[in-house]
């Protein structure tokens, strides 16, 4: 084959350009730390990265939702624990009333119950992050309101302004977790408070609370204990969900890294090879390109 100067030059430039292109790609990969900077770098990986990004974003959001649910539930449980203690005190007061040897008058015990009642209502109106936790989905109105009764007994009526609505938080793909305990579940609507009112009214009137009142208080305490236990169970399961989400998060990040990140060792090695090639090409070009017969003919003829 006839080889001409222009061909040598064209070949040299073509190969040099190819080498420089490869070096450029490797440098971009190394300096950005990413193997896929635009979708065309690896369309399949780009598709995967976009999907993983969405999954990671969702996963992080689920984790936030779980944290919120946990906070909501712990507020709920501490309120329930408070009411549980108050009911314990109430039982003590009732036992004292039944104990004939006790010096205190029933009336002053009634005052103590009055205090318990207002504290219990206060706890039942607990707010978390601007919402009443026991009102079902009626989170913007205080669920329990005491109003004096025009025609006693009872001296006061209690109304439940909430509802039985569950508030479900999204905590995973297709998974929702109820994060609220309604007044219906925890306090039987108004039943518990009506019983306390009835006990108080009786004591203040100087009579012993009825057995029905006592039974109602015991039932109320059981319901509060159950609700608190249920909330605790949900919190435990949310702990498990958090662990699961964290594990998923780690896996998703690792997966994205394999798709997106530059294999630095490999890229550096390849870059070194390409640099050697480039140096060789340039050195060769500098030696070969200027050469022709002309250089060796001092005088012709």
């Amino acid at each position, binding site marked *: *084959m*006839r*080889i*001409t*100067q*222009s*061909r040598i030059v*064209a*070949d040299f430039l*073509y190969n040099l350009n190819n080498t420089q292109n490869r070096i450029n790609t490797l440098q971009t990969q190394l300096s950005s730390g990413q193997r*896929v900077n*635009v*979708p*065309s*770098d*690896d*369309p*399949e990986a*780009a*598709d995967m*990265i*976009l*999907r993983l*990004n*969405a999954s990671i*974003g*969702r996963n*992080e*959001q*689920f984790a*936030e*939702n779980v944290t*919120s*649910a946990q906070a909501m539930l712990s507020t709920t449980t501490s309120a329930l624990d408070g009411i549980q203690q108050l009911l314990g005190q109430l039982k003590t007061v009732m036992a004292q009333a039944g104990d004939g040897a006790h010096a205190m008058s029933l009336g002053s015990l009634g005052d103590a119950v009055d205090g318990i009642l207002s504290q219990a209502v206060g706890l039942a109106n607990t707010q978390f*992050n*601007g*919402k009443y936790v026991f*009102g*079902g*989905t*009626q*989170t*913007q109105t205080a669920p329990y309101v005491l109003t004096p009764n025009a025609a006693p007994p009872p001296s006061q009526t209690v109304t439940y302004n909430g*509802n039985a*609505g569950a*508030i*479900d*938080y*999204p905590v995973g*793909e*297709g998974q*929702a977790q109820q994060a*609220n305990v309604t007044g219906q579940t925890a306090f039987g609507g108004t039943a518990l408070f009506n019983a306390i009112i009835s006990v108080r009214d009786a004591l203040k009137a100087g009579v012993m609370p009825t057995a029905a009142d006592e039974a109602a208080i015991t039932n109320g305490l059981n319901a509060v204990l159950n609700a608190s236990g249920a909330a605790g169970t949900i919190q435990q399961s949310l702990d498990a969900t958090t662990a699961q989400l964290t594990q998923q998060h780690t896996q998703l990040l690792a997966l994205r890294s394999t798709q*997106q990140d530059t294999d630095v060792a490999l890229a550096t090695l390849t870059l070194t090879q390409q640099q050697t090639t480039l140096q060789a090409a340039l050195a060769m070009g500098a030696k070969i390109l200027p050469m*022709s*017969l*002309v250089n060796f*003919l001092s005088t*012709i*003829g």
Partner: protein
Amino acid sequence: MSGLSLILEIGRRALQAQQVGIAVTSHNIANASTPGYSRQGAMFVPSAPLVTPSGLLGTGVDVAGIRRMRDSFLDQQSRDVNQSMSNASMQNQILTQVQATFNEPSDTALSGLLTQFFNSWQSLAVNPEDNSSRNAVLQSAGQLAQSFRSINGQLTQLRTSLQGDVDAKITKINTLTSELSALDLQITNAQALGRTDNDAMDQRDEKLQELSGLINIQVSYDTRGSMTVTTGGSVIASGAGAVPLQSSVQGNQIVVRAGAAGGPTVPVTGGELGGVLTAYNTTIPDTLAQLDQAAAALIARVNQLHRAGSGLGTPPPTGNAFFAGTGAADIAVDPAIAANANLIAASGDGTPGDNTTARAIAGVQTELLMNGNSATIGQFYNNLVSGLGSSVDSTDNQTKQQLAVLTSLQNQQSSVAGVSLDEEMTNLITYQNGYSAAAKVISAVDSMFQTILNMVSP
């Protein structure tokens, strides 16, 4: 004529022939770097012999002509490869811009904003009464809508700017075809006088090569060596003249016609013009349509769920659309909602703590709404982006492959037509030696004449 005069004549012809040889060689050397130049060679032939009693006696050398060394088959192949390479390369350039418009993969690009949008609805589901959650929904929805509109706007802008490209390329094509026609006429005129206009033929080949980078062409030659250039069946250049191309926008598509406005439509499939037209007529409209589909599906589904839900207030506002607009071009958060975040419907039953609507809208992220209920909006969009990536990648690969083929063809042509300085220097030495030798012959004859003249003079 015989004897010494004949030898003198042979010497003179030899001197002349070597001079022609040196002239051709220096022409070659001078044009060693001229693009498209084909090396030329003087064709030496022995001149017609004389019949003498001793037999046929040679009368020296004649220059039969100056020949151009070129393989026209390689030219044809080069043109074919060039038009598909330029097509792929042009498409690659435009697709790279289209791809850059999307700026993926990135958290701040549309895919990330889509995730943020749905996440903000989840946050709202967690705190439906909370004003800051509501504002976060407004903000993320605003950014998402803005991103849709911005991509749509940039792509539309890019497409409009391609009209100018089409016009510029057609102007270039028309200039080339008229130059080609003029050159062809020059070549056939010289041919009619028995001359070969090598340099004009080189220019014609070079311009044909340039033309093939712009548009798909077929070139044929008649027996006189006159060319006819056709594209998609229409003649655009021949010795008889050039037929200029015209472009016009017809119903959202650019159509190219040969000749006057009523001329035949030319299907442009190759060259840079083909690449631009593919992008203008197909690629960008398809991309825009898909983006529009995604936006329309999002608007329709979110609004449907949102209308059924309720916001905050007494009575709880309901029946409102969340997004205004119908597609990627005009998607926006409904102005009424943008002005009053309490209109955002998170609740399904009107109670402020209920979050069923917010959860339902957050759930749109995983609803299979696209491609005949087989893909989510996010997946559909991802496919659009990775599809663009594949197109950029494949056009890039095509360009590289065709460039490799073209380089190899050009190398082959250069081994036939290229000027080798080594070879030319060698030829120069040969011709120079020939010239010196012929001069020696003449001086020998001269001294022989002197001998005879000395014999006759006293």
